[in-house]
């Protein structure tokens, strides 16, 4: 694993982007890594595009924001429009399959598409678990944290009644990504 | 023919469902993104409840 992973999750208010980022960051910490998690706050995020960012590293993380993301995951068109501009070559973009007509991408960005919203809504019957499906997909693709840590992180981050559902969501996303990668091999 | 024309500015709609629930004549439904949609325009009786309660000024009911 490279020295530092910078991940950005984008969506609209209510999609649980921040919670997703927290689950990811907490999992990294459970794995014994360092992590920082930040987000855009306040009325601006109301309605418009929200982002939440995570840095993961084995070393001390100094600059805590994401200046140049390795991975961006977007659940809304607004997020795609706003948060992908600074993606460097070699970085990865994960889009929800429902998104269309987004902006052109910077050179050298690898794009994946997964129907994360649909998976949450149709397969799990709960659109609110989109964020954790997304974390599963992201981790399935990039292997940032151990799945064990991810699940413990979910257990920490949610009220008891929601833990199982979210672990299921995580696994659903994770499996989808693993299967895709298997298939792509 | 219907006496009223129900104009809906979807661009402003935030899917709150207030119009859907308050219209006494069930004129509104939801589209697949959750936004309001005029489904029974002909039923409109011009009571303006929808117009006055839409928090986002999406609706205008006109006499034809």
């Amino acid at each position, binding site marked *: 694993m490279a020295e530092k992973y910078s991940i950005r999750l984008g969506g609209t208010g209510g999609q649980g982007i921040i919670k997703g980022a927290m689950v990811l*960051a907490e999992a990294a910490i459970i794995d014994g*890594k360092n*992590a*920082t998690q*930040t987000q855009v706050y306040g009325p601006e995020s109301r309605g418009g595009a929200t982002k939440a960012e995570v840095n993961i590293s084995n070393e001390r993380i100094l600059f805590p924001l994401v200046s140049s993301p390795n991975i961006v995951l977007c659940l809304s068109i607004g997020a795609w429009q706003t948060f992908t501009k600074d993606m460097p070559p070699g970085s990865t973009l994960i889009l929800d399959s429902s998104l269309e007509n987004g902006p052109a991408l910077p050179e050298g960005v690898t794009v994946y598409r997964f129907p994360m919203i649909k998976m949450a809504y149709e397969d799990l019957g709960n659109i609110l678990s989109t964020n954790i499906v997304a974390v599963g997909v992201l981790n399935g693709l990039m292997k940032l944290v151990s799945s064990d840590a991810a699940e413990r992180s979910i257990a920490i981050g949610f009220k008891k009644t929601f833990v199982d559902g979210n672990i299921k969501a995580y696994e659903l996303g994770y499996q989808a990504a693993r299967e895709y990668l298997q298939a792509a091999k | 023919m219907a006496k009223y024309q129900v104009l809906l500015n979807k661009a402003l709609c935030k899917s709150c469902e207030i119009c859907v629930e308050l219209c006494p004549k069930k004129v509104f439904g939801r589209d697949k993104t959750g936004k309001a949609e005029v489904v029974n325009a002909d039923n409109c009786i011009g009571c303006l409840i929808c117009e006055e309660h839409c928090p986002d000024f999406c609706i205008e009911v006109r006499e034809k």
Partner: protein
Amino acid sequence: MVEARLVQGNEACALGAIAAGATFYAGYPITPSTEIAEQMSALYPKKDGKFIQMEDEIASIGAIIGASCAGAKAFTATSGPGFSLMQELIGYAAMTEVPIVIVDVMRAGPSTGLPTLSSQGDIQQARWGTHGDHSIIALAPASVEETYLMTIDAFNFAEKYRTPVILLLDEIIGHLKERFLITPDMMPPIINRQKPQAGQEFVPYKNTQELIPALPDFGEGSRYHVTGLTHNEQGFYSSKPEIVESFINRINAKIEDNSEEIFRCNGYNVEDCEVLLIAYGSISRSAEEAMNNLRREGINVGLLRPQTIWPLNEALIGDACCGKKAVIIPEMNLGQYAREIERCAPDDVPVVSLPKVDGTMIFPSEIEELVREVLK
């Protein structure tokens, strides 16, 4: 606390306050400090503490001063607009020597400004916001763990020196979530206010050599009077010039004369560097990253990272600046701390302010660029 967790700066502040022994919180919500109030409202009812949401920030600081008189370690949290409103009573606490902690999570100002974005714009206000001459202690942590530990320091200083202490978080630190693990060896000892010695005549505001009065809490038996008027050793109003003077000098001296103890900072390559960065709070992290990057390039940069903003250890800073090709102060304001460095640094050392007030954090690259430019 054995396992590392993901904790937010504001949350660490709340936990630190509890660890310091604080049992009273009064506040009025304001972004980006609100999580501290929310934490206390959830924690205190379960931990023998008291939480109250007051009608405004003035009432909030009033309530914590009252609570402190009654024996509680008490604190409040706010941001710029609320901090401005608290100024009168910060002066009152300084004047009456009541220990309190005020957390100011700095957002971009002036006025309502940019409620959700970060700044370090209240550095000078923390020193000069209230009328009249008083000294102040202000601290600025740079990480979530440091927020926890320095919240404890804040209470310790408040109790030890019987004075209001300002904890300056910038919004980035307040809202940052990161790895958090406090082990017992990291914990500072907890300091409690000194009480009058039994058997000795009780003179509430006696001007002893230590300069700090030993006062009982209300209810402990030695009744006394607390007033924001200039007062004599007995605590009653006096306008006698010699009394006023010795009083005002004492409440200033008890802090300024101890600036060596109170001023804490970390240094990295301070002595042998060519260019010295001085940075605090979140921006010290950008500065450290910039330093690391530049050193990799072979540029000899050092970093002085004050944890204490006020009082300044002017001698220490002056020495640190001595002989440098340049001293650069990146900060999220228009050079508020740089003014002080300018004052302390020798004339022949260029003191370069790197100000930023657009609500965004200073990136390491911005510092790197300036260093390179300055060295040209």
